[in-house]
């Protein structure tokens, strides 16, 4: 449908980063070189914001190890902050400062915009216009260091004293890169402009002259009243005034904004509801915050009919949202165009740098110093040469310092020998410029794009249930995936499906967890009759028969308690029931929409036991209790926040009694329960909770308290004050909530199962076998965590568990020290006995973690943790996106995490192919490509350098300048990129079967200092061979410099391509085409260059190729150059084979071996 159209283009290319630190680049690299994947689903920026402030783990040593926690918590209700719907406030206390606020006169855009220049609604995501394109694009391109290097070299070359290359030739590399990038940018910008144009010209109906008329989006102004029909998209951020729903509810889908597909409820204020804009003039003044990028926050108040009404995030609908299940909605535009929250969030992706690249920079510096050394040698020798010949220079035929053609004899092109030395230094920089492989950066980007393409297209990482492909959001850390040592994973929604199922209940100390749960009947579950139709919940829940019977009776205290319990479940939430038509006209389904899957499960459970929530508006809820429809006024609601870890709702009963229901995590709930009332029940419930959590269930505790009239009034007034406050509203509301939520009587506890995702245990086992350390962070109780740990194979019976569970700093220190000793001992024992049965698992709870992180114990924790194979943190400390690689799961619910992640996928188990297969390939490919690029460029430079030694140190190049320029553009560029994208050292099957092969990346086998030096030594040998064989062959012969230059060109190009060919593992037709194609392309280029009559080398290649010596030379060079490499490679392969080598042999020969050696080839399964 039309409304599925995404928001203005770039919005989707970049994650929303609402949290303070989300977009900041990670500063953390592990000191021991480990790489970390951070997995976190559905992380919410607002909870992040809360938790970062209380975060105490910002000390350097801890950060340096990239251990970062993020809060997930159990979120029961909608987000924290100020929910104030349903209450009309007639007073407002605080004026917003004029500077801090914008005043919007409803339906009076003229007045609204006269004092302040609010942005119009036309958006511009395009960066350039026709005029500004050239300067701006160039300016942006030259922000990259590489381009600056190109530019400086090119400028140097333009100086007449330094002109080594012809002008055209020296500009070509820079120009080609700039041109390609500019074309790409222009194309992208053109697409943005086009999407802007489409977006700006969409139509909406706007109130003009008391009539709703169609108006283009770009003409909409702040203050105008807009009417949106169902399935239409919001043109700007609007405050709701009224909706088709009599209670002022509007449902919106925010999929374009944060990717969450469930419906959210937004409310129009009671005061504005009854007005129909066409008939009676709406006028009012909205006083709201300045535009900001927090998509979950909004604070404002509205003056209408002399009254002040406070507005919160639930009253505003943001641009890009789609109106659903509501016929129409009318609202006033408050933020438009670039000031809308959606557009403000339109920031770039977080930039991270891969570890390989960091290491590479070290080698780049080495190469730069090598370049300086070469240039110094050349310039020093040039100085010496000039000094030695100083008396002869004047008329020396090949120097001729003096110009006799003028009247007075003067020096010609000679600047004194000091300057000459300086100039020859600069000239040698120009000649040897490609020593620093600038083209490498461009190749790397291309290779990463190619790798991303294959990751996205991998059908093994396609999630059929959510119909999502793998997503690559960051393009510069692909190769990090092959070097991961630690995985930090959230539990809920990452390991688990986040599809909650109600399992057991403990009500008033009685445990209803019998074996007798079953579906009731064919029809399934509870249903009610409404106007001749059958309404039933969409999801069926298994019920406990005993409890079901009890819930249907109504006479004893027990059933009263059960009544309160289920009423709490049905009422104390933010779930919205939506009635959905089915194919059967007499039957309708109730779909409970809400942001928390836990709440959904509880409401479905309540419905199954006959407490069916059928209507929720801002002011009341209707619950069908055992066939009897009851209406409760919702007098107030304190939504869930991660500090309180509970939510509460104040219900006004039909008989005008008032009760508060609270639901929350057991740790916080038992603190506020009045234990004097019924100690036995509390004790029993605690026992039940313990048993639930030890089988891996999520538990919630429900409590209740009646409110007296005075209590209620007191609460009401303080709530009003808090909820209309513009500053610190959330804090005030929290305070109000804490005052209210106390002395509760315990109703019971619920247990919800969050099932593990398919394939999680196997995936975790694979990852552990690959010696990746897995950390899981969960908000559950410790018992739950351990039990989940077992079921997900995170923990095995062979592991030694170290449990840290303390309440004070001192005891924490003690147990940490003990644990360290134990782990050291264990490791020693296993080392001595060669028995690897026992590895260590650390389980640490949130409180202890806080103590440890607050103090100087971090180091010890780190030491301990790095010894453990598994770390389980039952914690609630925040996890931020600070990891080297952030992987988001586009799971059941939101996709906020996806927006902030580097990679996103549908299922946890895809982590295995992602890391073990693609990560391995990416790393191996990239590592090889970098080394090869160093080698390739240095080889060419060295061949040039050797020649300089035979030209009086004057930087003549026998190789034509065009060949020098084309060398890294045409002659050798394509094969390395193709091999970087396509080569595979091992098949997917081997990599998946033997996760240990992943160790190659962890041990940095594809790129390390040793390999670098080895490659450089090889390069030195090859350059010597390439240069000196022709030199000796043509010594004292009539060879001209163009011919020998062509020979060197061809020799070097053939050499680097054959070098590459020797290392290619899989020869597909593409590899063949690119490598042999490059060689052919080089020959063609050389021929073309030598066919230009005005170049000195005219026809050289043809004369050369007609001599036998040339071909013998070429053959000799190629064979001689490759011998050392071949010998060393073969020797290492035979005597010190790496795992990959053996696996590759096994891949190829296993069939043969199996038949001859009779199954002996069976690779031992991992002994962990």
């Amino acid at each position, binding site marked *: 449908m039309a409304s599925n159209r995404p928001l203005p283009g770039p919005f989707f290319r970049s994650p929303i980063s609402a949290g303070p630190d989300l977009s900041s680049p990670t500063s953390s690299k592990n000191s021991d070189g480990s790489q970390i994947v951070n997995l976190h689903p559905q992380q919410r920026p607002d909870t992040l914001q809360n938790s970062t402030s209380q975060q105490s783990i910002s000390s350097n040593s801890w950060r340096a190890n990239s251990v970062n926690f993020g809060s997930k918590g159990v979120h029961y209700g909608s987000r924290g902050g100020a929910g104030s719907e349903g209450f009309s406030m007639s007073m407002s206390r605080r004026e917003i400062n004029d500077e801090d606020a914008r005043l919007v006169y409803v339906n009076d855009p003229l007045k609204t915009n006269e004092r302040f220049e609010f942005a119009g609604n036309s958006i511009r995501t395009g960066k350039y216009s026709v005029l500004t394109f050239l300067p701006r694009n160039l300016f942006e391109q030259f922000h990259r260091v590489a381009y600056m290097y190109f530019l400086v070299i090119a400028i140097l070359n333009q100086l007449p004293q330094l002109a080594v290359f012809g002008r055209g030739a020296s500009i070509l590399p820079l120009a080609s890169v700039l041109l390609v990038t500019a074309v790409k940018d222009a194309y992208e910008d053109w697409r943005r402009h086009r999407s802007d144009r489409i977006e700006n010209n969409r139509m909406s109906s706007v109130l003009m002259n008391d009539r709703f008329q169609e108006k283009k989006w770009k003409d909409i102004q702040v203050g105008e009243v807009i009417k949106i029909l169902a399935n239409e998209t919001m043109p700007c951020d609007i405050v709701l005034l009224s909706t088709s729903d009599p209670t002022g509810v509007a449902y919106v889908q925010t999929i374009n904004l944060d990717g969450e597909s469930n419906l959210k409820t937004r409310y129009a204020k009671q005061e504005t509801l009854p007005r129909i804009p066409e008939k009676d003039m709406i006028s009012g003044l909205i006083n709201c915050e300045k535009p900001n990028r927090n998509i979950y926050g909004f604070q404002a108040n509205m003056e209408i009919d002399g009254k002040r009404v406070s507005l919160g995030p639930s009253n505003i609908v943001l641009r890009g949202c789609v109106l659903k299940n509501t016929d129409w909605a009318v609202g006033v535009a408050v933020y438009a165009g670039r000031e809308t929250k959606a557009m403000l969030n339109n920031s770039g992706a977080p930039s991270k740098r891969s570890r390989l690249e960091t290491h590479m920079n070290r080698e780049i510096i080495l190469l730069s110093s090598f370049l300086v050394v070469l240039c110094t040698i050349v310039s020093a020798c040039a100085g010496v040469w000039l000094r030695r010949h100083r008396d002869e220079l004047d008329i020396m035929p090949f*120097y001729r310092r*003096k110009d*006799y053609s*003028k009247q007075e004899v003067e020096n010609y092109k000679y600047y004194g020998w000091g300057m000459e030395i300086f100039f020859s230094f600069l000239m040698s920089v120009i000649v040897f410029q490609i020593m620093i492989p600038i083209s490498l950066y461009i190749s790397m980007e291309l290779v990463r794009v190619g790798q991303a393409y294959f990751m996205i297209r991998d059908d093994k990482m396609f999630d059929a249930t959510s119909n999502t492909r793998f997503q690559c959001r960051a393009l510069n850390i692909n190769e990090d995936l092959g070097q991961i040592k630690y995985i930090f994973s959230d539990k809920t929604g990452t390991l688990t499906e986040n599809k909650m199922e109600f399992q057991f209940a403990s009500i008033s100390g009685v445990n209803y967890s019998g074996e007798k749960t079953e579906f009731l009947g064919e029809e399934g579950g509870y249903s009610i009759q409404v106007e001749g139709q059958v309404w039933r919940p969409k999801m069926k829940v298994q019920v406990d028969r005993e409890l079901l019977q009890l819930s249907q009776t109504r006479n004893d205290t027990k059933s009263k308690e059960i009544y309160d319990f289920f009423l709490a479940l049905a009422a104390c939430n933010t779930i919205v029931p939506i009635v959905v038509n089915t194919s059967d006209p007499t039957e309708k389904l109730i779909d409970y929409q809400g942001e928390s899957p836990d709440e959904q499960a509880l409401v479905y459970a309540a419905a199954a036991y006959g407490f069916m929530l059928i209507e929720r508006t801002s002011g009341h809820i209707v619950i069908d209790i055992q066939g009897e429809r009851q209406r409760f006024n919702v007098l107030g609601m304190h939504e869930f926040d991660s500090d309180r870890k509970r939510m509460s709702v104040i219900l006004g009963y039909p008989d005008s009694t008032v009760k508060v229901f609270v639901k929350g995590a057991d740790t916080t709930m038992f603190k506020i329960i009045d234990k004097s009332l019924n100690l036995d029940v509390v004790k029993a419930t605690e026992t039940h909770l313990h048993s639930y959590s030890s089988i891996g269930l999520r538990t919630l505790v429900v409590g209740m308290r009646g409110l007296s009239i005075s209590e209620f009034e007191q609460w009401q007034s303080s709530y009003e004050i808090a909820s209309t406050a513009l500053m610190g509203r959330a804090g005030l509301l929290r305070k109000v909530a804490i005052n209210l939520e106390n002395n509760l009587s315990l109703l019971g506890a619920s247990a919800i199962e969050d099932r593990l995702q398919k394939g999680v245990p196997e995936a975790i086992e694979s990852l552990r076998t690959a010696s990746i350390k897995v950390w899981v962070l969960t908000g559950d109780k410790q018992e739950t965590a351990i039990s989940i740990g077992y079921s997900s194979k995170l923990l095995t019976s062979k592991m030694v568990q170290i449990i840290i569970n303390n309440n004070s700093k001192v005891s924490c220190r003690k147990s940490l020290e003990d644990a360290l000793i134990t782990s050291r001992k264990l490791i020693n024992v296993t080392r001595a006995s060669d028995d690897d049965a026992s590895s260590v698992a650390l389980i640490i709870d949130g409180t202890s973690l806080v103590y440890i992180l607050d103090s100087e114990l971090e180091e010890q924790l780190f030491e301990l943790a790095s010894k453990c194979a598994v770390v389980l943190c039952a914690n609630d400390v925040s996890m931020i996106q600070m990891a080297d690689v952030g992987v988001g799961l586009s799971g059941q619910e939101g996709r906020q995490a996806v927006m902030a992640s580097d990679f996103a996928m549908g299922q946890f188990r895809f982590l295995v192919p992602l890391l073990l297969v693609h990560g391995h390939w990416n790393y191996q490919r990239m590592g090889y490509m970098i080394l090869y690029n160093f080698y390739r460029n240095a080889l060419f430079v060295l061949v040039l350098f050797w020649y300089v030694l035979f030209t009086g140190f004057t930087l003549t190049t026998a190789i034509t300048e065009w060949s020098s320029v084309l060398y890294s553009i045409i002659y050798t560029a394509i094969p390395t990129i193709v091999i970087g994208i396509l080569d595979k050292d091992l098949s997917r099957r081997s990599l998946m079967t033997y996760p240990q092969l992943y160790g190659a990346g962890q041990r940095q086998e594809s790129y390390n200092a040793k390999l670098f030096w080895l490659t450089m030594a090889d390069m030195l040998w090859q350059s010597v061979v390439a240069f000196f064989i022709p030199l000796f062959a043509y010594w004292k012969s009539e060879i001209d410099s163009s011919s020998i230059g062509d020979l060197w060109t061809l020799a070097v190009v053939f050499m680097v391509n054959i070098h590459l060919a020797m290392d290619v593992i899989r020869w597909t037709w593409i590899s063949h085409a690119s490598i042999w194609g490059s060689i052919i392309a080089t020959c063609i280029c050389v021929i073309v260059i030598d066919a230009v009559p005005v170049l000195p080398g005219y026809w050289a290649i043809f004369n050369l190729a007609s001599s036998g010596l040339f071909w013998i030379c070429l053959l000799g060079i190629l064979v001689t150059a490759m011998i050392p490499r071949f010998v060393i490679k073969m020797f290492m392969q035979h005597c010190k084979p790496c795992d990959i080598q053996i696996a590759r042999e096994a891949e190829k020969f296993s069939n043969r071996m199996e038949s001859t050696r009779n199954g002996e080839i069976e690779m031992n399964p991992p002994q962990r």
Partner: protein
Amino acid sequence: MKLSLKLEDQQQNQNPILFKAKIPIAVFGLPFLSAFSATHHHAAAASDKLSLSLRTHFPTGPSLKLSYNTPTTTANSGAGKMDTSPKPKSKSKKPKYSRFTQQELPAWKPILTPGWVIASFVAVAILFIPAGLLCLSASERVVEIVDRYDDECLPDSYSNKGDSFIQSKDTNKTCVRTMKVPRKMTAPVFIYYQLDNFYQNHRRYVKSRSDKQLRDRSYADETRDCKPEDNLDGDENEPIIPCGLVAWSLFNDTYKLSKGNKVLDINKKDIAWKSDTEIKFGSDVYPKNFQKGELIGGGELDETKPLSEQEDLIVWMRTAALPNFRKLYGKIYSDLEANETITIVIQNNYNTYEFGGEKRVVLSTMSWLGGKNDFFGIAFLTIGGICLFMAINFILLYVCKPRPLGDPSYLSWNRNPNGL
């Protein structure tokens, strides 16, 4: 010889083969191999695939294959791969299956087994040792006479003052040298002059020329790069043709050869590249203002002959790659017998004294490999020898310390159960 490259890939688990048959048949008496196979696609039961093929089956040489696949394959799938099954959902984002996107293109995965390693070393040795011997013998057959004359042709009174000897107009620069032919030199005999320590590849020098001017009359004033030999006396209307240091320093010693009393004809035609005389140097470009400046660098040119006929210049303008070089002076189309005495009358005009250069005259025959050069013979023998040595070494290594290929017991985690 039969070379067969089997392109294996991991498709077997993707497309389990139901049935496969290869039957050799004869068509018109020629051997053919017909193949028939049916595969079963993993995703969709409906898309079974049938393929028929017929290929030539000669014992040697390349083979030609004609094949037919069932048309379920999409048009663009050249490699004969299967498309995805009919989609269950209309809007599924499931990546389309192709061997390319799944990185499963058929590939040749060579592994150098010990056999291959040894074979390749032996092959190089077998190729290089005879080649080395061939080169040596070719070089051996070349007869070369080299005579350095720059010092010998300097009268004693001018020793250490070669400069003034050359620059003076009054000195007699004729010099007679004799040399003995060591072995029979069969025609053509090439006469070279050899300059040592002359940096014809010096950057100032190399750039000081105008190829446009040499080729085309209309570019006569294209002398920008030629400084200081660009225009006569700095007058822009008097461009020097050919301009620049390279032309200016034209070598101008001359040689006259005689065998006994018989003058040997030195043929100076066709000493330059054909491409140069025909295209690079214009036939309508005549020398002008050449060597008319204050400082005379070397040879003069006949102003009545176009540049394309000035072959000495053309040869000189092909600047040498290295500071020690030879350039062709002419050819003698008559045999020189062994022990014959050759007399060379040299006009010692060219000034190498002032920068310490050396001049030689060289008479040489030519082999298929060019002039006399033992380098290749020795180099090839050395490489061949090394390869043979390596082959033996690797044989010993494989025999003494065998390692079964793909033996899992060599895997790091099996060798060292503790892992890291």
